[in-house]
């Protein structure tokens, strides 16, 4: 007993934080970590190539991030519930084609109205795909990994079947539709601002509403969530519909950004989305993380791609480096968790000995 007490006295107390504060800090550190990584990246890259900080470059990075961040928002909500949505790339492709194609059928309508209709079509297509995913996962009780892997191929297949070898060409779209993606406010694209606002709304919802907190509870302990009476099926279903709808919106933005659309739009994009979510600190097995983190993950991923491009690294390396980044993000999480667990255990032993 005495020896134990002595060793306690000799052990340096890890700050004077309560266990709760310690964990809170670690979780917050995740977001700070991403921001710090961004800062380091920007400083180092601009030291090598000052062009990196030019307004034009900032504009491009933010413009590229809008679509990825929007998808990451929906994906984060799904992943937090201990599910995954692999179909977002295909949904984006289908929604992009459907919204781009609709302009050809809206002769004589004002440009404003036709753009609104294009957005509604995109959201409608995306939501429908989300309903399909959500229903199969919650009613069919099929693991989401399998369901959305299947819908990834099915939706892409529908896309190819509708479009065939053809494509929507840029000339059939109104100029105002392109300008959506082009206009910016002091080199910050308006769309980036809009997506930022949407992410903030999402974060607020996840934090301050029962339906948002329920998503965390479901991912943290699905069995306990059912036992305390959380409508787990309805919540997970909704998360998939939201993810689908956001992928639909992202499809419309894709159409506005690239103009020329064929059946390959967004192919493989789901992997970038999941990468952004994981890098952003959302636990892949659910329960923790934030949608802001996921959006920052998207920003970090795009910043890295831009930085590598600017300093002239070959595109081959960009892929390998994104992969390494995922490993680093996951390792950091793992190390923090292990450190915390053992710190808490030591604390407990000390408390018991006292």
């Amino acid at each position, binding site marked *: 007993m005495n020896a134990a007490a002595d060793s306690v006295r000799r052990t340096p107390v890890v700050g004077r934080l*309560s*266990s*709760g*504060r310690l*964990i*809170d800090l670690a*979780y917050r550190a995740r977001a700070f970590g991403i921001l710090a990584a961004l800062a380091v990246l920007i400083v180092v890259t601009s030291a090598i190539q000052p062009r990196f900080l030019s307004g034009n470059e900032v504009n491009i990075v933010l413009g590229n991030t809008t679509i990825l961040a929007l998808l990451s928002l929906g994906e984060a909500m799904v992943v937090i519930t201990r599910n995954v949505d692999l179909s977002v790339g295909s949904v984006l492709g289908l929604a992009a084609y459907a919204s781009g194609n609709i302009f050809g059928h809206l002769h004589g309508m004002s440009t404003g109205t036709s753009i609104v209709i294009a957005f509604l079509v995109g959201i409608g297509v995306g939501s429908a795909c989300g309903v399909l995913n959500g229903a199969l996962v919650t009613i069919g009780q099929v693991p989401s990994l399998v369901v959305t892997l299947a819908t990834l191929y099915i939706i892409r297949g529908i896309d190819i079947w509708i479009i065939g070898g053809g494509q929507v060409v840029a000339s059939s779209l109104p100029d105002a539709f392109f300008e959506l993606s082009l206009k910016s406010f002091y080199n910050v694209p308006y769309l980036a601002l809009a997506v930022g606002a949407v992410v903030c709304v999402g974060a607020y919802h996840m934090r*301050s*509403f*029962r339906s948002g*907190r*329920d998503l*965390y*509870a479901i*991912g*943290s*302990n699905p*069995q*306990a*969530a059912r*036992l*305390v*009476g*959380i409508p787990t099926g309805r919540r997970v279903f909704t998360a998939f519909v939201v993810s689908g709808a956001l992928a639909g919106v992202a499809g419309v933005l894709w159409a506005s950004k690239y103009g020329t659309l064929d059946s390959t739009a967004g192919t493989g994009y789901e992997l970038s989305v999941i990468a952004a979510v994981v890098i952003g600190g959302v*636990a892949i097995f659910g*329960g*923790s993380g934030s949608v802001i983190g996921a959006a920052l993950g998207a920003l970090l991923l795009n910043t890295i791609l831009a930085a590598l491009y600017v300093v002239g690294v070959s595109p081959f390396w960009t892929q390998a480096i994104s992969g390494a980044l995922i490993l680093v993000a996951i390792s950091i999480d793992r190390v923090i968790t292990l450190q*915390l*667990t053992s710190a*808490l*255990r030591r604390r*407990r032993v000390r408390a*018991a000995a006292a």
Partner: protein
Amino acid sequence: MTPGGRVPQARLVLSLQHASKTFGAVRALQDVSLDLFAGEAHALVGENGAGKSTLVKILAGVYRPDEGVLVVDGRGVFLDNPADARDAGIAIIYQEPLLFPDLTVEENIYIGRQPLTTGRRIDRRAMRRHVEEVFGRLGVRLDPGRIARGLSIAEQQIVEIGKALSLDARVIVMDEPTAALSAVEVARLFGVVQSLRAGGTAVLFISHRLEEVFELCQRVTVLRDGRWVTSGPLADMTSDGLVRAMVGRDLLEREPEEQSIGDTVLRVERLTREGVFTDISFDVKAGEIVALAGLVGAGRSEVATAIFGIDRYDAGAVTVNGRRLRRASPTAAMSAGIGLVPEDRRQQGLVMDMSIARNIALASMRSLRRLGMISGGAERRFAKDWALRLQLKYGRLSDPADSLSGGNQQKVVLAKWLARRPSLLIVDEPTRGIDVGTKAEVHRLLDVLAAEGVAVLMISSELPEVLHVADRILVMREGRIVTELAHTDASEEAIVAAATGQLREEAA
């Protein structure tokens, strides 16, 4: 006269009357009644398998009784699911609570029913206030804003109790809450129970530790073999009387069979795993059956898995046939001649989807190998031979192990290890969930093995089995061996007394 010793003006809060529950052929509960009064701590005691868990699950709304009525606050209620039990004001604190590790303490208490402000936003300030008020009432200090991951079991139980209070539960059932707690934590929990009682809550307290029962509770109900034995104020009872009520059946006599005991096969010296078991020393000789008795959670299975190398140990040594065994290596244990028949045969003993033949041959692949390949024919012949020896009842050897009855599954696990001709066989709860007939066969098999010179270490919670089969009995309590009994001196009373801590410490 008032029904509860120290609760004179008590109001009947919950009354379970003549409840019965059967599962297939097993009568888990038969005509059991239980009354709980406001402000009392009521103990529910009985041996393993006496029906305590079934009773708890009925109160929790998990099982519906086949017969019987449940009256809460004077109204008959039917509990179809856990939510019904919650609405009826019954809360269950399990030994290991189900919390959300990623959510804060206060959210764990209020998830799904957080206080809201206008606009249906969560009112965090009100939530914090409520939780602090509840913890204040309980007299505990726990940061409501910390995340639940990393809370000790004791703290997790406090969170669950806080949730029960915030739901205005009038009955709180604690299912062996102290099994995983340290002495300090138990004292704190008892303080919390006193505050609950003072607030008029009825507490049903389930524990194997009789000293705790006497310290905390006013009344007791004893179950045995699924039946109600007695209820009454604890002030009128002695611990000997309580033990007798719990055990109370005729003892099985074992026909004395002289066996030649050989050399020491297994020697365990001062084996310790921090927080699980301490200073475990014993040996098992060839031809001897040694039983590790004690309550569930006393650390018996953990000792077995440590010997076999599945779990690490912090100090001590295991020697088999004079050779020191490498720690944490099941492969080393197997080549030293140890076989382990685990407690959970479905999860750990068998590969359920694999054929019976494959399962039997699984641990003998090396000897069946020809030029690095296993021939199906050799495997089948091998399996058939062992199936015959153990009188296995099966359809075809190619059927999955899942298709067998519990007893025959256990025989497959035994066959798997016997085929390796072990010098030491560790069997953990060898007859759990097995019908009486097969049980006797398994016992006969263990006897035959011992007669052939195999050393057997058996873990069993069934006292008749321990008394019937073992030559020597080591009783464990809270991670330590508290007593050793020769077959001739052993009685159920002696084992229960030692396992529950009623034994006066013998000269150490």
